[in-house]
């Protein structure tokens, strides 16, 4: 049984400069308990796609033009607001890149972690406080003055890593089935990043939560995810189990992305660069969105719509030439 099943999602923004097709035909699914990585560069639509099924895309200018997102029999894209509210923050939670802007600076962290329990689970204050204290302890929020002081701390008392732990506590305190983590470690130092990723994995094992991890960092994907989607210009260009994606990437964009990382080359060697820029999303793209920058472009790439097709077990790519066996 799929936990989340998104089909042909299109989220467009109607701006003065035209229609921006931020997400343009994305289909994906999440199995219970698994970790799905979504990797892509800025503007690839990876965040907007995930905001879409939580009903968090500001409208106007945003509009969900087509698609469905089935979560336990409910289409999140068409669900009335009260239904969506009962799911969001309870059965699907989200953590963001910058915990300082996501946390309320006027509220103690204890109150913030209690909030979902009061709102969604209808617990009494005393019980909610107990559960929140336990949660803060299990995410490793430390305070020399004891658990009481931990609950009473304000976000500005805490370091970036500790704030992200509070966010994780808040997101997981209701034991959601799905956690969407959007660049959760991008603002953190590498040593703290390693701790936070380990914490997410640990909590996931304990609670059986499925995770969608959105990141631009392929290294983060390699160590945490079961499956990976590569996004570009609002579409999915490749989808594969993590090992397959890293050891036998099929789409030219994925390969170019891996080649342009400094770690792919010997020190001092010239890095591979992708020529050109990502396409403007204001004009409709016919054919493959990566075609203008691709080293393997043929005529067919510019005309035939590039659709995701399986080329090996569990491994799908949107490259027409790979599908036909030319590459």
């Amino acid at each position, binding site marked *: 049984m799929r936990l989340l099943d998104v089909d042909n999602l299109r989220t467009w923004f109607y701006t003065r400069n035209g229609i921006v097709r931020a997400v343009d035909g994305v289909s994906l699914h999440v199995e219970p308990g698994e970790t799905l990585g979504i990797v892509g*560069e*800025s503007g690839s639509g990876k965040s907007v796609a995930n905001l879409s099924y939580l009903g968090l895309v500001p409208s106007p200018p945003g509009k969900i033009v087509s698609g469905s997102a089935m979560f336990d029999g409910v289409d999140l894209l068409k669900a009335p607001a009260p239904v969506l509210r009962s799911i969001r923050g309870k059965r699907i939670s989200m953590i963001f890149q910058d915990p300082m802007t996501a946390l309320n600076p006027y509220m103690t962290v204890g109150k913030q972690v209690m909030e979902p329990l009061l709102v969604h689970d209808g617990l009494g204050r005393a019980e909610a406080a107990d559960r929140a204290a336990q949660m803060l302890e299990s995410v490793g929020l430390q305070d020399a003055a004891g658990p009481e002081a931990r609950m009473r701390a304000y976000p500005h008392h805490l370091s*970036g890593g500790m704030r992200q732990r509070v966010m994780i506590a808040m997101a997981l305190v209701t034991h959601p089935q799905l956690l969407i983590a959007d660049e959760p470690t991008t603002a953190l*130092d*590498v*040593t703290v*990043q*390693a701790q936070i*990723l380990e914490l997410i994995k640990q909590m996931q094992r304990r609670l059986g939560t499925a995770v969608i991890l959105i990141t*631009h*960092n*392929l*290294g*983060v*994907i*390699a*160590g945490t995810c079961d499956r990976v989607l590569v996004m570009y210009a609002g579409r999915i260009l490749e989808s594969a189990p*993590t*090992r397959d994606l*890293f*050891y036998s990437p099929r789409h030219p964009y994925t390969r*170019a*992305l*891996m080649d*342009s*990382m*400094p*770690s*792919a*080359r010997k*020190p*001092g060697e*010239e*890095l*591979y*660069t*992708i020529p050109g*820029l990502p396409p403007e999303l204001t004009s409709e793209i016919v054919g493959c969105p990566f075609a203008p920058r691709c080293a393997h472009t043929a005529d067919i790439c510019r005309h035939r719509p590039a659709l995701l097709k399986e080329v090996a077990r569990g491994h799908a790519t949107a490259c027409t030439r790979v599908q036909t066996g030319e590459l």
Partner: protein
Amino acid sequence: MTPYSLALVRTPMLELRDVKTYFQIQRGSFFKRTAAVVKAVDGVSLDVARGEIVGLVGESGCGKSTLARTVVRLVAPTAGQILFEGRDLAALSPRQMRKVRPRLQMIFQDPYASLNPRMTVSDALAEPMLVHGVARRREVAAKVAALMERVGLARRYMKKYPHEFSGGQRQRIAIARALALDPALIIADEPVSALDVSVQAQILNLIKQLCRDHNLTLILISHDLAVVRHLAQRIAVMYRGQIVELGDAEQICSNPRHPYTQSLISAIPLPDPDKEAARMRQ
């Protein structure tokens, strides 16, 4: 005093001797008192040879940016010597410092914040040349065009404003501006950390090529060890205001000695699932 040219031959381009930059945190409004002292840079000594690329790595708050700002005298050092081409920058008056500045340029992380949004590319590139009197008005346009070509920006962009460019192109403008005065030493503070992987590769290649072509000396500050390892010959690792390890780039990355360097390197996520899995079992 030794003649300037003689001093150049014998000494490294930049010599830091026990540099300290402390910040005093003041409390109270009328009767100010010093409540605490933050030792942002706490006794750093480092030699940088002509034409060398030295990487400076460390986590946020370790003092790497403060050290960079101290070297170019954007903040004054509390103690120590900053010998640049044989002269102690720490002892120079603001007027004397202004004469040295063209030789010593900086590139910042966020090219959107470091470029004036109301200046076109050609104005932004011409400004330093006119201020320091290295080009006459008549020559400026030609020099601007040459600079743009060096950093890979098409000449037709000359009259455009920063907001019309992508992040990578903006960083090219910032690099061109740093090169405008023909500096001897460039300090780049996280020049690629705001950029996407594919654009990052373009900018790293550009920096490398410029350093090679113009025999530039570069101090490259980054929290990303892979970036630093790719460009630098030597790496200095900073922790709590001090350099805890300094050595050959390959040596530091493959055989780190200091426990802090070891933990830093082991925390870097590798784009390789098998290596990552093996690491978790440790």
